[in-house]
C-alpha cells in the first residue's frame, strides 16, 4: 500500500521525526489525547459563534461575541493542526490514501472557506448589530454551514480508524 501513496507522504512517514513519534511510548497517545482536548475547546467556541449567528445568545452583540469566541476557536484549531500533524506523520502513507481522511481534509478546506466567506460577505453587516437586533439571512446560512461542516469534520476524524 505504501507504494501507492504520494512520495511526499512516504518520505514524511520514513522521516526521523515520524519514526520518533512511532517509537516513543507516550508521544502518539499524547497527541491523540491533545487532539481530543483541542477538539472540545474548538467545539465549545464554535457552538457559541454558530448559535449566535442563528439568533441565540441574543443579549450580547454578535460582533463582540464572535470576535472573542473566535480567538479560542483559532487557538484550538492551531492545537488540532499540530497534534493532527503528529498523528498523520506516524502513518502518513496509508492515511493519505484513506478515503475518509481525504473527505475530512476536503471538509476542513470547506470549513476554512466558510470562514473566509464570512469575513468578506457578512462580518461588516454583523459588526454593527446591537444586542437583540435581527440577524441578516446570510448569517444564518453561514452558521448552519459552519455547524454542518465542522461536525462532519469531527465525524470523519473519528471514522478514519475504521475505514
Amino acid at each position, binding site marked *: 500500500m505504501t507504494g501507492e501513496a504520494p512520495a511526499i507522504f512516504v518520505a514524511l512517514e520514513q522521516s526521523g521525526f515520524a519514526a520518533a513519534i512511532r517509537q516513543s511510548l507516550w508521544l502518539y497517545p499524547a497527541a491523540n489525547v491533545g487532539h481530543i482536548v483541542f477538539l472540545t475547546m474548538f467545539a465549545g467556541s464554535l457552538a457559541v459563534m454558530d448559535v449566535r449567528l442563528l439568533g441565540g445568545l441574543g443579549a450580547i452583540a454578535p460582533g463582540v461575541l464572535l470576535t472573542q469566541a473566535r480567538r479560542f476557536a483559532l487557538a484550538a484549531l492551531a492545537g488540532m493542526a499540530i497534534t493532527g500533524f503528529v498523528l498523520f506523520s506516524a502513518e502518513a502513507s496509508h492515511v493519505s490514501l484513506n478515503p475518509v481522511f481525504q473527505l475530512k481534509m476536503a471538509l476542513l478546506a470547506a470549513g476554512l472557506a466558510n470562514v473566509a466567506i464570512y469575513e468578506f460577505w457578512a462580518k461588516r453587516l454583523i459588526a454593527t448589530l446591537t444586542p437583540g437586533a435581527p440577524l441578516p439571512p446570510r448569517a444564518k446560512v453561514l452558521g448552519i454551514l459552519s455547524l454542518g461542516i465542522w461536525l462532519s469534520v469531527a*465525524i470523519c476524524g473519528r471514522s478514519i480508524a475504521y475505514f
Partner: protein
Amino acid sequence: MIRSCTFFAVLALLTGAAFAHHGWGSYDAAKPVTVSGPVVTSKFENPHATITVRGSDKVWTVTLAPTSRMASRGATQNMIAVGKTISAYGYPSTVEKDEMRAERITVDGKTFEMR
C-alpha cells in the same frame, strides 16, 4: 437543502463502505487462528506494534497493541524481538492478506492480553 445534503452525506459515510485497517471490525472473529513460530521482523511502534511470524503454513503479519499498553503488561520490546518463539491467538484480516490481529500472545511461557 444544505442541511439535508450534509445529513445524507454523513449518513452515506456512516453506513457505506467496508471496514479496513484499524479497529476490530475488519478481522474475522468467527475464524480464530493460532500462529506459532519464530519472530521474523519486529516493530515496537505506535499506533500498534507489529511483528511477522513464520508459522507452519506461511509468514503472518501479526498486529499487536499500542506500545504503552504492551509495556505496562510486560510485553516489552525484548519479549517480541526477532528470534523469539511466539504463539499468537487472534483473527485473520478480511482486508490485508496474511495479516491477523492478536487477541493474546504467549512468549517464554507467559501470556499477554492485547485488548
